[in-house]
C-alpha cells in the first residue's frame, strides 16, 4: 500500500501535479513577480474587450463571455494601486476560481510554473500603513527570484464578490 502511494506520488510529480500544494503559476506586473496556487487557476487567455459593469470599483474592469459564462475581470495593477498600462496583445487574463466563483485577473504577462517549498516561503513583511500586505500569503524564493505569493481570496471583500450563495 505504501509502495502504491509512493509510486502514485512520483507519477503525480512527473505529471506536474503538486501533491503538497507548492506549485505556483507566476506572472508579472511591471518588474514584479507574483504567484498564485496553480490549483486555483482554471485557464489562461489573451486579453479581449470587456463590458464595463456600471457602478462598480474601478479595479473591476467589466465582464467577459467565457464560452457562455459571464466572468468578471479584475485589473491587478489597479487593485494594487499601481500605475495602469495600456492593454496589448501580450496582456493576459489568468482565470482563477475564488470562493467557487470564476474570476479573471488581468496581468502583464505570464511566466513560469515554479515549485516553491513551504520552507522557502516567508511571512509577508510588515510595511506599516504604506502598503497593504493582507492579500499576500508570503514571499517565496525560487532560485534568485522573489515571488509575491498571492492570497486571491483576500483580493476581494464580501461585498465585491460574495461567497457562494
Amino acid at each position: 500500500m505504501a509502495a502504491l502511494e509512493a509510486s502514485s506520488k512520483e507519477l503525480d510529480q512527473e505529471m506536474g501535479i503538486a501533491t503538497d500544494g507548492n506549485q505556483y503559476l507566476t506572472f508579472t506586473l511591471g518588474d514584479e513577480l507574483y504567484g498564485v496556487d496553480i490549483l486555483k487557476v482554471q485557464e489562461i487567455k489573451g486579453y479581449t474587450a470587456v463590458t464595463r459593469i456600471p457602478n462598480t470599483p474601478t479595479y473591476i474592469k467589466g465582464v467577459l463571455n467565457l464560452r457562455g459564462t459571464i466572468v468578471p475581470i479584475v485589473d491587478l495593477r489597479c487593485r494594487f494601486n499601481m500605475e495602469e498600462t495600456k492593454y496589448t496583445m501580450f496582456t493576459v487574463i489568468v482565470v482563477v476560481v475564488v470562493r467557487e466563483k470564476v474570476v479573471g485577473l488581468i496581468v502583464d504577462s505570464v511566466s513560469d510554473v515554479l515549485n516553491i517549498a513551504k520552507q522557502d516561503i516567508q511571512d509577508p513583511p510588515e510595511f506599516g500603513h504604506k502598503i497593504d500586505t493582507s492579500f499576500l500569503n508570503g514571499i517565496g524564493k525560487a532560485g534568485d527570484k522573489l515571488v509575491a505569493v498571492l492570497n486571491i481570496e483576500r483580493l476581494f471583500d464580501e461585498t465585491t464578490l460574495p461567497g457562494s450563495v
Partner: protein
Amino acid sequence: MSSDLSQFNDAFFEEASEHMTSIEDGLLQLEQRPSDLELLATIFRSAHSIKGVAGMLGFTGVAQFTHKMETLLDQLRNGKLAVTPPVADLLLRCTDVLKALIGEAKGGEKPDAAQVGHLEQQLADCAAGKVLTANQAPSAPAPVVQVSATTGPTALDAPPHPMQFTIGWTPPGNIFQLGLDPMQVIKDLRNLGAVSHLKVDAGKLPALDTMDPEQCYLAWSLVLDTIKPQEVVEAVFEFVKDDSILSVLDTTPDPPVAAPSAAVAAPSPSHVRRTADDEGDVKPLGAILVETGAVSQEELNNALAQQKKVGEILVEQHVITPQQVAQALETQKHAEATAQAKKSDTATIRVDTAKIDRLINLVGELVITQSMLTDLGKNFSPVKVPLLLEHMAQLERNTREIQERVMGIRMLQIGTAFQRFPRLVRDLAQKSGKKLQLVTGGEETELDKGVIESIGDPLTHLIRNSADHGLEPPSERTAAGKHEIGTIRLNAYHEGGSICITVEDDGRGLNRDRILAKALKQGVIQEGEKLSDDQIWQLIFQPGFSTAEKVTDVSGRGVGMDVVKRNIEALGGTVGIKTTTGKGTIFTLKLPLTLAIIDGMTVRVGNELYIIPLVSIVESIQPKTDTVRTIADQAELINVRGAYHPILRLHQAFNIDPEHTDLLESILVIVETEGERVAVMVDELVGQQQVVIKSLEKNFRKVPGVAGATILGDGTVGFILDIRGMLDLTRRSELKVA
C-alpha cells in the same frame, strides 16, 4: 444496500406525485360515476405502486398508510362496499394525509399524528363495513351532482389472518449488476413477518478460479409466517421477479374459514402482539401504565431518563471505548447531515423521449456539418467560398434548432398545473354551499417548468376569487335565469410569443360602483377622478382591497389579488380583466413562454449597449421642449398625454459618457412595473431581439439596476436593465417627486 436505494428516492417522489394526482383525479371522477370499475382499478393500481416502492425504499409510514387505503379500495373494487359520497370524501382526505406523509419522507414537516391515526381508524371502520356517519365524514356530500347510491356494505371481507408461505427463490445471475441485493429482499420478507427454515443453496457455486465475482450463484428457500396477503409477499420480488425463478406457495396449515362470524371476531391477543409493528396500534408499556393510573407521566419520564443509552452500557461493559462511541456518534451525525442535504430539493424533470430523440438527431446533423466544414478547411480555395457560406448557413440552422429544442426540454404541458384545481373547486363548493363545476381546456399547451411551478398560486387565488366573489349561490342564479351550477373555465392557449391563461366565470361580474366606493374610502382614488373601466378593474389588485362584504373561510381578507398581480409580474407577465355585469368575469394572464429567453429592446448610450425587456416598455418618445418640466431645477419630468413621469438619465445613473446630454436630442423609453412608470433616457434604439438571460450573480454579485447579462451577437456581454431597480435608482438619485 439500503443506503444505495436512496438514489431511487427522487424518482419515487416524482412518480408518487404523478400517482397522487391520478388517485385524486380518479376519486373526483368516481364521485360522479360511482360504479366505474375501470376507474377504481386505476386508483387501486396507483395506490399499489406507491405502496410497493415506498415499502422498498423504507418509507414505512407512507407504505402503511397506503396499505390501509388500499384495503378499503380493494373492498370497493370487489364490490363488497359501495362508493358512497362519505367514502369518497374519506378517501380524498386520505390523499391529503398521504401527500403530507410523502412530503415528510421528502424531508418536510411531519403530519399531525392524531389526524393520521383518526383517518386510519376511519379507514379501518369503513373497510370493516361500518357505515360512515355524518360525524365521521363532516363534509357534505359531493357538490356538483348529487350522487345517489345505496349505502351499506354488501359483504364483509375477512380481516387479515396468519398465513404461511413457502418461498423458493433463485435470483437472476446478474442481480448485482442490476444494482440489487438479494439480502435486501430477504430483509424485506423479514419485515413482513417471521422467517423460518431459511436455507441457502450454494450448489451452483463454481470453483473459485472460474467464479465471476459479479455473478450471483446462490438460491434461497424459506418459510414465511405473515398476515400479509400473497400479493404483498410477491411484491417484495417486484424488481427481480422477471428473471428470477420464484415460487410462493401458500402453505398455511389450517386455513381459517372466511365466514362472516369469523370475520367479525376480534383477533386473538397473540396475533396483536405479532403484528404490532405492522399495525402500529399497540401502545408502549409506559403509556398503558400512565393510562391505568399506575404511574404519573412525571414518574414515567423520570424512569425513562434513567434509561441508559446503548453506548454507555457498552462502555461500562468494556466492550468499546468512549472514543469509539464518540466516533460512532460523529458518523451518525454526519450521515444525518448528508441525508438532510440530499433531501433538499434536487430539481428533476421528466422529458418525453421523443424530444430527446429529436435532439440526438440534431446533434448528429451538427456533427456532420462540422466535419464538412473541417474538410473544407483542409483544402480551401477561394472558389469554394459559396460552399463555405452554404455550410455556414447549415451550421446556423442546426445551432438555432438545437437551441430551440433544448429550451423545449424545460417545457411541460400546463395540464400538470391544472390538475390540482378540480379538487380545489370541489372543496370550495363544499365550503361555500354553492354548486360549481370546473371546465379546463388547453392542457396540452407547453410552458416553461419554472413558470408552471410559479403560476399555481396565482391561479389558486383567481379560482378562489371566482368561487367566492364571482359566482352566486344557486338560488340567486336560478332567479337570474342561469343554470344553478356555476361554471369556472380554465383555459390556456398560445398567443404570439406568449402563453395566455384565462380564468373565466359566469357569475355576477365585478361591481363597478362598489369598487369605486371602496377605492374612495381607502383613498386610492380621489373624488371626481375619471377612470376608465379597465383602470377601475385594475383597482382590485391593490393590496388590502376586497369588496367582499363578509370575511369567509375561503377568502375575503383582501389578500390574494395583489399577490396574483405581483407574482405574475415577477414572471414578466401581465393580468387583464374583462367583466360584464350579470354575465361573468374573465381574468387573462399573459406570460412569456420561458424565463430563460426574453424579448428585449437593445438601446445604446454612448458606446454601451443595454437591453430593456420588451414587456416593461410602454412606449418610446422623442421629448419636445414643452413636454419636459423640472422641479427644483433637478428632478425632470416628462408629460405624456397629461401624465407626468420622472426621467432617469441612464448615463448619469450608470456613469456612461453619452452622445447626447440634451434631453431634446435623446430618446425616452417609458417603462412600467407594478403600475409605476419612469422615462429612461437613451441615445438610440438599436433594435428588438430575443436574448438568452445569463446570470451575473453566479460569478459576481447583484448590480443595482441590472437584472442579468446576455451575450450579444458579436460575442460580447450586454446587460439587461432591471426596471424595478431603475425605479429605485431614480429615487436614490433624488429625482423622486412627491
